[in-house]
């Protein structure tokens, strides 16, 4: 099995997969947050026109694809910002115009060019050259650097665009940056995952990550971990199985998602059975509610008539009787609920 690692094209494919698995979920989390999950797919379509132009003119296809996708990204954000109701249709025109032009132009590519349409659309580990790996490395570093600096702002805009605008954050420039990062990710993923499947690697690891996470940062960490496992694992498996790398990577990611969803459902069912809901009361426990606060693991319990209440979704859970003072506390804080109406 380890001889895979000594094969040149496998080494290149694994490095490319590593970069894609790392970067795609990082960019994808903001797309999912903005409910623009499928925009990466559209940019992949336009990148194909860029690849075609590269093949016909003899320029580097990776760079012409980058140019095409970035131009499309900026155009899309400007269209969205103008808030036209038919922006949706305009996106359709750009996306399908891109893929159609790509197919037509590639058919005119000179003889002898590696104009294998399928390898661009679905990825092929054999097509990744050393020069590509260097380009991907630089692009991936640019993406990660930009995200490291801007992620709190991208989060703010994706989370609540109206608020971001009201407090004067540069909403349009940030949205354009995100679109350009998406376009760049599409190009990085072009060889290994393929232009038609790259969107999956931005979305599926995040879908699985959201099942496990309780915060934005943990969601991001889970998604990157799942993205890495799918991308690197997919390339590994595709070699002995002799399957296209892109499809294999995405099938693996979807399997991880399904396994995660099923296990979380089972765990949730088990927890449901174990957890005990406290009597309902209108009173809201808080730092100044008058009930004694007791730190309990990652949360705070409030001592309510001798038993512990912990906030859980819309209600309070019973976290057991207070083992220290439940019985001795005969002067307990009964009747505190009336404080609500003050």
């Amino acid at each position, binding site marked *: 099995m380890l001889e895979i690692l000594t094969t040149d094209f496998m080494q290149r494919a694994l490095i490319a997969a590593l970069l894609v698995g790392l970067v795609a979920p990082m960019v994808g*989390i903001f797309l*999912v*947050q*903005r*409910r623009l999950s499928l925009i990466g797919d559209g940019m992949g379509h336009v990148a194909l026109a860029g690849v075609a132009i590269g093949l016909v003119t003899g320029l580097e296809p990776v760079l012409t694809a980058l140019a095409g996708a970035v131009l499309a990204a900026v155009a899309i954000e400007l269209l969205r910002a103008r808030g036209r109701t038919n922006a949706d249709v305009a996106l359709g025109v750009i996306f399908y115009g891109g893929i159609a032009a790509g197919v037509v132009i590639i058919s005119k590519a000179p003889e002898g060019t590696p104009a294998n349409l399928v390898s661009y659309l679905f990825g092929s580990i054999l097509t990744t050259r050393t020069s590509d790996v260097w380009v991907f490395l630089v692009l991936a570093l640019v993406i990660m650097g930009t995200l490291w*600096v*801007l992620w*709190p*702002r991208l*989060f*703010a805009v*994706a*989370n*609540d665009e*109206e*608020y*971001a*605008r*009201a*407090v*004067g*954050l*540069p909403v349009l420039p940030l949205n354009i940056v995100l679109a350009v990062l998406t376009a760049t990710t599409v190009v990085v993923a072009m060889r290994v995952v393929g232009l038609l499947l790259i969107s999956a690697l931005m979305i599926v690891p*995040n879908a699985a990550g*959201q099942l496990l*996470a*309780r*915060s*934005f*940062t943990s*969601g991001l960490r889970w998604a990157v971990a799942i993205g890495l496992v799918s991308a690197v694992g997919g390339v590994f498996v595709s070699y002995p199985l002799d399957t296209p790398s892109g499809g294999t990577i995405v099938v693996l990611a979807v399997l991880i998602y399904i396994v995660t969803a099923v296990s979380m459902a089972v765990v949730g069912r088990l927890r449901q059975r174990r957890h005990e809901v406290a009597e309902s009361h*209108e*009173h*809201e426990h*808080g*730092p*100044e509610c008058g009930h004694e*606060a007791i730190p309990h693991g*990652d*949360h*705070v319990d409030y001592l309510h008539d001798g038993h512990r209440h912990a*906030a*859980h*979704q*819309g209600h309070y859970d019973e976290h057991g009787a207070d083992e220290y003072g439940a019985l001795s506390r005969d002067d307990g804080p009964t009747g505190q609920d009336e404080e*609500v*109406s*003050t």
Partner: protein
Amino acid sequence: MSAAPRSASRADPSPVPVIELRGAAFGYGEHAVVTDVTLPVHRGEIVAVLGPNGSGKSTLMKGILGLNEHLAGTVRLFGEPADELRDRARVGYVPQRHTLSSSIRSTAEEIVATGRLPRLGWLGRPKATDRQVVARALELVGLSDRAATEVATLSGGQQRRVLIARALAGQPDVLVMDEPTAGVDVASQHVLADVLARLVARGVTMLIVTHELGALERLLTRIVVVDGGRVTFDGPPRRFAARRRARDHAHDTHRHDSELAAGDTAAVVPHGPADRSGQAHA
């Protein structure tokens, strides 16, 4: 710059109003929804903008925030024309419902931290002091113990307080709130009112857009009524209450009459020959 003395006792006599609208009109596209609004808000005032749904009060608020088209008149914030104000975070916006994206999980603290961003410039990263401001904002709204809780699992009232904390993290000079009590149950409304009272005590200026006064009434220093896209009342709560009493009087009299009638019949019945309870009354 008109420096009309305000009747509200808390108002600072400073001649530069925090918000100053003069003959302002706002709307969407070419269509004006609110017109001819003249409204100075001074430091320390707690102003409720009241009006039924569709009256134009939300359009007025979004106009002040620069979120829709400013079609006529002038809008000045802190003495500067609103479109020239660079530091927009001085106006702390608390939106109506949680307009927050729910497709990605995030904690209360993560949301509140976004309110600090306008204070960090274009590329700055939060420092220890910024994290302290965020922690203090959560503490002020009574949610320190829920900082790491996922926002979507909080109650409606708690989510509203997260949004207030987010605005506070920007250390604003005025809070502009859209329907802070809508969809919040009565108990949580009182918690919310206590939070706002704490801010009032710290001298925060507030503009609260609402269709019902509810638990917030005790905090107000001034009430502005918007109806049909125009300001129809502007004055202290006492005058508003007097006006409301005068208007309700007709209804009260009517109800009073029917109660009296009911009382009369009830009084008649016990006076039969076998009645003993009447003696106790007599």
